[in-house]
């Protein structure tokens, strides 16, 4: 009796959120799948129709798609790896801070809470080849003779990755800090009694117990990095071989008004992210099983 009452109450409480998500969310998601099978173009609304999988066939032969997929992949792999390494280092450095913890946590949170557009604007000023702080400092300490064109063709991807690493490493560091705090102190005491060195302790205790936290951080970051849009849009506009899939989709959808093809690319991007997440989860699970 009570049980039935409880499920009914639960249903009532869940209905508003579910209804909202289904009306507003399921509609765009499903319409992407439907639109991806049509050649709907807002510039030529008369000539629309069902074209089967031909958008996906076009995708396979689209050099720009493959180029941008490669660039998105490079961006994701390099920036997430750097963020993981730096985030781990920062978490280890900041672990067990007692005095000044609030100040330190606040300062490392700052880059992460900044609007991405602000971070990008800030970095385009810092990296400006004529008036940027970076070139000024490099010149003053005598490391460079001529100003470096950070956002030019050769270094644009490096600069974009640098800005992303600055902005999102704090997220990784905070997740890993929580991980370090969850490791019982007794494990370290036991290791010390056994005479284990620092490196051995790190490899035998810290790293294995941190693995689930590393998995979550990498998964979240990889999914976000693969969809990156605003940072690159503001820094380079996608020029100098920094265009990612999201920017290409934006171009197709909103410059060329090619809804059919743009939707097909969205579906492809979703599929890639979905498979990538599954792969990452599987990999993490396999590597955390005892050998």
């Amino acid at each position, binding site marked *: 009796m009570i049980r039935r009452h409880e499920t009914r109450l639960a249903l009532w409480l869940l209905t508003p959120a579910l209804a909202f998500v289904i009306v507003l969310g399921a509609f765009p998601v499903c319409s992407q799948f439907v639109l991806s099978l049509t050649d709907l173009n807002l510039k030529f609304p008369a000539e629309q129709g069902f074209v089967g999988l031909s958008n996906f066939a076009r995708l396979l032969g689209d050099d720009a798609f493959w180029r941008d997929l490669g660039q998105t992949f490079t961006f994701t792999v390099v920036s997430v790896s750097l963020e993981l390494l730096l985030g781990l280092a*920062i978490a280890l450095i900041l672990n067990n801070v007692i005095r000044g913890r609030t100040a*330190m946590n606040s300062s490392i949170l700052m880059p992460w809470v900044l609007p991405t557009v602000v971070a990008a604007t800030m970095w385009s000023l810092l990296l400006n080849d004529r008036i940027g702080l970076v070139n000024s400092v490099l010149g003053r300490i005598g490391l460079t003779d001529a100003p470096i064109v950070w956002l030019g063709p050769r270094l644009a991807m490096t600069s974009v990755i640098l800005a992303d690493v600055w902005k999102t490493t704090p997220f990784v560091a905070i997740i890993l800090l929580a991980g370090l705090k969850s490791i019982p102190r007794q494990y370290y005491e036991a290791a010390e009694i056994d005479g284990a060195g620092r490196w051995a302790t790190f490899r035998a205790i810290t790293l294995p117990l941190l693995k689930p936290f590393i998995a979550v951080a990498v998964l979240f970051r990889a999914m976000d990095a693969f969809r990156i849009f605003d940072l690159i849009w503001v820094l380079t506009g996608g020029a100098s071989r920094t265009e990612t899939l999201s920017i290409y989709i934006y171009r197709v959808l909103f410059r060329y008004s090619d809804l059919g093809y743009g939707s097909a690319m969205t579906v492809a991007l979703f599929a890639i992210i979905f498979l990538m997440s599954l792969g990452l989860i599987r990999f993490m699970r396999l590597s955390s099983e005892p050998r």
Partner: protein
Amino acid sequence: MRRLRHGRILLWLARALVVAACLVPLYWILNVSLSTSQALYKTPLDYFPRPPTLENFRAVFRVNQFPRNVLNSFVVASLTTLLTLVLGSPAAYALARLRVRRKNVILATFLGLAIFPAIGMIGPLYIAMARLALINRYPALVLPYTLLSLPLAIWILTQFFSTLPGSLEDAALVDGCTPVQAFVRVILPLSAPGLATSAVLIFIFAWNEFLFALIMTSTPESRTVPVALALFAGLHELPWATIAAATVVSVLPVLALVALFQRRIVEGLTSGVER
């Protein structure tokens, strides 16, 4: 003993380096915003505003519709936070503490939504908003933002509700509350910290969002701060010093939130992974 001492000094140096890496770029923007436009073109550069001036901030508030953009951002972020919590907290309560049929299907729905590329939702949502004549108006941003922040809010709140002791509702029911009253009068007040955590994260997300704001607004007076800022910089219609001042104005609210709720934000970010 001496080695230990050296180790400690090195550790504090490393900590200082981390803090500096985070704060120096921010300092630079503040410096430029307080300097004259000409100061930026000096070689070598001044690393302090000499002389400091507030002219750039005055210029920002004269230019375009920037005060209006700030107001828009506040309204949109606040309404999003409110709507997300109103929809999300009952749902999270049900998921955390009540028997729900097909719980996994419901969770999977929210999760799938969280990984779908936002860029793909914009087109259909744009068409829907255009049909409803909502483009350039607050709902065109509040509704999609609520959609995007619901999964995170439900996730955090579910974690939070499940940490409360299980006997709370029973006690309330014995005292003659209805189940709904038990949720509203007993559980919600006790969950203030969890609600605050989610509210801060939702507000920051909505304040910072760019892609939807770029597409759902087309007039200067309907833009939010990030879009206004990106268009300032993109069009090069303003000197860098003015752009820097606009940047400083646009980050003040989020920096204030960090200063006030630093611990809550960390809690929210890590609530899903702890255990």
